């Protein structure tokens, strides 16, 4: 029925199978929208956050998806600015992932901020003293850029490109995409940094507070670096997942290895920077504020194991795997390392958000605990479902992997060769 909407030369599953795949995600989305609706209509009393524990699951989700979505800006930067042409194979997928991550983050932020009728206040009456202002402006602008970058992918749909004005506009817009890639890099660079800066400037919370350069705390730079390091890993991981689910070869293995190498290199630099930052914080910043760093880890469940897990297990080890050519060529190692790197950034954002707020800062403060309400969890799941749905529809109807058609032929050749070798 929808064959004429699907790119020529590629195979997609039947409508029935596709509907079967998307049905549970749609159900999850509906449930999540209901939960989010409750939060918007009845207010934030639907959540388990309060004035003390103001950041919870949603901010953790925001920070994580924005870091993982950094693959969009970083791949665009590498392809269009540094001219690493091999990444053309994954750029469309990276744009969709970026769009999903950023639009999901904006939606959750909108629910978190609440007062939907006054959402525009954040743009019209921005708070000069808040790093969140920079985040809001950068995310909104970058989401606009991502939507414009997504437009050529949509307009290239087989049916849509039959409309002459769509075809011509897509062609002309695509020629200027390097400008958008440059702008996207600038915006993403700043808001990743601002998100990190949000924590680094918290003088009242010595666990998060960091020194830095001029007005920028070290977390500003660490967030940028970690996002740039993990973005390619997430693209690698999603591409591999899509290949497994669709049972198709979508990109050449060398492209995945290249993504792994880039990710490994940046992750190595990040682990080094993070280690130095942690040592400075343990030995100088925190004691100067009257807190020996060991004290933060005396509150269960946040032991020093979490620091070890973040820096060594999910940082150093995947970096070493991704940097080792012999391990990188083996898909199992490559994908596991990419998954570990993604877990590392998620853990870092979790520590920054939840551990920071849980720890007491005054002698009479209790250790706070927080677990999200079902409405918060529902909203969280809605973003996940939304992401899967947008990606699934995009994969079905748009050409996310330009080499797919060519690779089908190569796979066929390989199969024939294997068959011949087996025969003789």
């Amino acid at each position: 029925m929808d064959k004429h909407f699907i790119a020529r030369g590629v195979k997609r599953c039947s409508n029935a199978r596709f509907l079967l795949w998307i049905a549970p995600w749609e159900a999850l989305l509906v449930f999540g929208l209901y939960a989010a609706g409750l939060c918007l209509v009845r207010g934030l009393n639907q959540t388990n956050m309060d004035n003390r524990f103001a950041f919870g699951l949603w901010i953790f989700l925001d920070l994580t998806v924005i870091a993982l979505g950094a693959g969009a800006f970083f791949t665009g930067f590498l392809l269009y600015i540094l001219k690493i042409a091999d990444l053309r194979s994954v750029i469309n997928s990276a744009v969709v992932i970026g769009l999903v991550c950023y639009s999901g983050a904006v939606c959750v932020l909108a629910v978190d901020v609440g007062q939907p009728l006054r959402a525009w206040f954040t743009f019209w009456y921005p708070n000069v003293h808040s790093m969140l202002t920079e985040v809001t402006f950068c995310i909104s602008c970058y989401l606009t850029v991502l939507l414009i970058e997504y437009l050529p992918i949509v307009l290239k749909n087989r049916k849509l490109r039959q409309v002459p004005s769509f075809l011509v506009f897509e062609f002309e817009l695509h020629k200027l995409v390097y400008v958008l890639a440059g702008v996207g890099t600038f915006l993403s660079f700043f808001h990743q940094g601002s998100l990190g800066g949000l924590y680094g400037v918290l003088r009242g919370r010595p666990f998060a507070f960091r020194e830095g350069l001029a007005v920028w705390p070290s977390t500003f730079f660490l967030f940028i670096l970690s996002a740039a390091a993990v973005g390619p890993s997430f693209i690698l991981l999603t591409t591999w997942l899509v290949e497994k689910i669709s049972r198709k070869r979508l990109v050449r293995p060398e492209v995945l290895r290249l993504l792994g190498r880039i990710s490994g290199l940046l992750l190595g630099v990040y682990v080094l920077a993070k280690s130095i930052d942690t040592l400075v914080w343990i030995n100088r910043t925190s004691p100067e504020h009257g807190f020996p760093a060991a004290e933060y880890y005396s509150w269960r469940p946040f032991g020093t194991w979490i620091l070890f897990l973040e820096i060594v297990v999910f940082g150093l080890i995947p970096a070493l795997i991704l940097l080792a050519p012999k391990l990188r060529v083996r898909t199992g190692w490559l994908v596991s390392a990419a998954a570990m790197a993604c877990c590392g950034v998620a853990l870092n954002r979790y520590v920054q958000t939840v551990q920071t707020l849980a720890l007491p800062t005054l002698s009479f403060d209790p250790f706070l605990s927080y677990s999200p309400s079902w409405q918060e969890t529902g909203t969280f799941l809605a973003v996940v479902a939304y992401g899967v749905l947008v990606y699934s529809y995009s994969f079905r109807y748009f050409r996310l992997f330009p080499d797919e058609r060519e690779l089908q032929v190569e796979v066929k050749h390989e199969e024939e060769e294997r068959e011949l070798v087996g025969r003789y």
Partner: protein
Amino acid sequence: MLPWNYGFHWSAASYIFLGAFYTVLVIVATTLVIALVRSRRELRANAVDRIRWHSDFHDLPEQDRMCRHVLTGEFKSRECPHAFDCRECETHPKLLAKRPLPAVDEAEEDLFGMSFPLDRFYHRGHTWARLEKDGVMTVGLDDLGRRLLGVPDAIQLPQVGERVHVNGTAFRFRKRDADVRVLSPVDGRVLETGSPERGWYLRVQPDPLDVRHLLRGAEVRPWVMREMERLQMALSQDRSAPTLADGGVPLDDISVAYPNADWDDVCGEMFLEA
């Protein structure tokens, strides 16, 4: 923060922030406006066909974008930088001057039971163009194209008087589930339209008369050999169809032999439509 806010005052930070913010907005808006203005200009200049072909060409698999000099063995591999329009190519005339095409004795190439008369020029989208004595170009489908199409379900020909462009749409056809456009080998104005029964589809007054981009003589054989490989691959992709038998001859209507093949994919591949 913003000049219209209560309590706003200019400072270095506000200059930097507002400067960066508005610069980004201006760049994004300008990019969109430029794309829109250029699109409008191209639409007015009737450049849709040219753009469609460039877009299609860009989406073709790498091995289908190869230069004609790869077919004749002058290059091991080279991607055509001009989307099969050798009139724009600087390398093509130099190579021809260095190594002219060898003469062919036969009046036609007989390949796999298909006939490719050498009194005409061939486009890589399976059309031919023959210059008649009256200066008019006759355009038709080559033997492989004709067999792919068999008896078409429908054909949409251009109106008499309409202009066709090299690598633009000459005509469209429907066959089973395939709805494919056929590329025009020449620039010019349509004088008359034909039909499959007449063996040709268009008679065109060429303007300008230039066939440098079309294959001829000794180029035809290696090209057809290559096309047969592509056809074999296209027919065997979904593994629902057997490969072509060695020494066999394509039927008059190849689609009959492959009732389960995705004919839209096969025709799209062979007629170079993405």
